[in-house]
């Protein structure tokens, strides 16, 4: 489904990604771990098309379609979803209205009829249950005045409504207490589907206790330096990222 080949990218003058190769099949959950500054978040941004990054080499295709030549909104419409580490506030725009605009933009792209306000309300109320969100949140401004946990839950609600082919979860566990983490993880697990791929970017192994990955990759200095099954995450938890520096140097 997702195929990344030799991906190099810069932020400004700085090389961040230095040759990423990664294949994520349909229904698979891949965890990307690594120390601060290893390029984890950059990978999510480059895949989702954020401005400020320059791809200098390599390719990324989703279902055979070149992602890198598309503007951010086209990638979203093709099924790329990024759950933000720091979800953004949009004052004065209700959650419901925002999500309906997004939902209909995607439907329109697929040549489907746009949902009416009534139809959409049914959908969103159903999905809100997945993340145990009080329907009152739907009428509040997007992320405005939300707690850290509420913001993350809101991201997963959006994921559930937009039903992407590829979900990129950027440090979704950061700033969450254990109860909120469980709710968010349950929401994500409910979204696991044979047709949907996940890339879970995280610094800590903790999240992977709840979202069990099929593969774990360790990113260091812009390259994947180790790949393995879910047990790799546990090993890292014991050993720390310290050893990676040496490994990367050896390679």
């Amino acid at each position, binding site marked *: 489904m997702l195929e990344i080949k030799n991906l190099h990218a810069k932020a400004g003058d700085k090389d961040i990604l230095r040759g990423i190769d990664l294949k994520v099949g349909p229904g698979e959950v891949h965890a990307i771990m690594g120390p601060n500054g290893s390029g984890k978040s950059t990978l999510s941004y480059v895949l989702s098309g*954020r401005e400020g990054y320059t791809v200098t080499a390599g390719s990324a295709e989703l279902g055979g379609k070149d992602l890198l030549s598309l*503007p951010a*909104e086209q990638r*979203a419409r093709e099924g790329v*979803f*990024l759950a933000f580490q720091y979800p*953004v506030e*949009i004052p004065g*725009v209700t959650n419901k209205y925002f999500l309906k605009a997004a939902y209909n*933009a995607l439907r329109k792209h697929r040549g489907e009829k746009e949902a009416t306000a009534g139809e959409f309300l049914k959908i969103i109320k159903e999905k809100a249950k997945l993340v145990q969100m009080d329907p009152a949140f739907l009428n509040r401004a997007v992320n405005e005045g939300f707690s850290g946990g509420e913001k993350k839950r809101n991201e997963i609600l959006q994921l559930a409504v937009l039903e992407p082919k590829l979900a990129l979860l950027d440090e979704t566990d950061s700033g969450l207490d254990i109860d909120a983490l469980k709710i968010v993880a349950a929401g994500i697990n409910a979204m696991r589907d044979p047709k949907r791929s996940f890339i879970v970017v995280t610094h800590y192994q903790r999240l992977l206790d709840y979202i069990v990955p099929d593969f774990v990759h360790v990113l260091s200095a812009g390259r994947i330096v180790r790949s393995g099954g879910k047990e790799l995450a546990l090993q890292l938890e014991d050993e720390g990222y310290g050893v990676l520096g040496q490994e990367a140097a050896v390679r």
Partner: protein
Amino acid sequence: MANETISDLTNKEYQYGFSSDIDADQAPKGLTEDTVRLISKKKEEPEWLLEWRLKAFRHWLTMKAPLWQNVTFPKIDFQDIIYYSAPKPKKVLASLDEVDPEVRAAFDKLGIPLEEQKILSGVAVDAVFDSVSVVTTFKKTLSEAGVIFCSFSEAVKEHPELVKKYLGSVVPAGDNYYAALNSAVFSDGSFCFIPKGVRCPMELSTYFRINAKNTGQFERTLIVAEEGAYVSYLEGCTAPMRDENQLHAAVVELVALDDAQIKYSTIQNWYPGDKEGKGGIYNFVTKRGKCQGKNSKISWTQVETGSAITWKYPSCILLGDGSVGEFYSVALTNHYQQADTGTKMIHVGKNTKSTIVSKGISAGHGQNTYRGLVKILKGATGARNYSQCDSLLMGEKCGAHTFPYMEVNNTSSQIEHEATTSKIGEDQLFYCRQRGLSPEDAVGLIVNGFCKAVFKELPIEFAVEAHKLLNINLEGSVG
């Protein structure tokens, strides 16, 4: 320069469907006492009104054009303006195909029904939708309720005692340079009187929408709400408006007696000039309301998206004890547009309350200024004010400026002022785009969210249009 820009606009007459026939019934260019006498005579006005005009004119001669404003424009040559010309009928168009495509595109985006588009752009209307009969029905409903609603000229003839009593009672003839000019030469305008205890049976917006008339260059509006009366009045419309006159200096006076309420909404979408800042309307207006009676309320809501220059401060004099003044404003400046707008809340009576919510949006090379005065007089015990002034910047070349003035002479008053300046952030844009919204839709969404507190004060049908209007006027401001 002024001549050039004025002639630019007049040269466009044909393009936008204005009649270019030379009308015999007009005064020569320039302004003298004779011009004022001619206007008054042509309108068959009573002696007292001529005297009132002359007094204003003589005062105007002693005044100097103000220079403190934060907008710039070439010096206006007041002798190069024609101050009287009989109302010219617009050229009637055979079909919408003859309307300027740009204007039509705007109609479509605003979602204005076809039949209304025709009326607004002066296309001959077919029998199915007879605007005359609609207007007649409105008039009947209003007169049954005892509401007087007519042109200013008509009011001078039919209700001279009311006009005499209230004209200039809020904005005196010599109030300021442009108000004095207007007082001397005003062409026509609207008069609205809601008698004691009457709630005006319809939003007067509806009336305007159907009866979109050609507003004059020097318009004068007077609205009086007697004890316990209520009226909601909407000026302007979302449809783009072209006019051959560059300078518009209107005066609006509102009077609210005991327990009366006046809600005055404005949507202004005059021609803003082209993308290089050439041409466009100068909108220099004096708007003021007097809450004369106890517990009266005057509420101004304005959405200013048009004009090359918008310069006005819809204000409230809170005379009656317990009276309330409100000002809700969205001002958008794109391309080379300039705006210096805000309000004055003058607290005179006890326990008077005012609310100011101002949202300025600057894009392109637009310059947007909020200027406001909250004045609490000595006797205004227990006065309260809440002001919120937010500015939103888009791009690197625009500007936002805020000049809040406060004069407090009573220690029991409470004043709150909040102000923010923000940019449409790259992170907000990316967030929206990552969810599948185009950059244009994303900006529209963010800006409309920013303006929400003001839009919710508009009559509902216009709130929807105002939302679309902002999006249209922001087109091309991204990227």
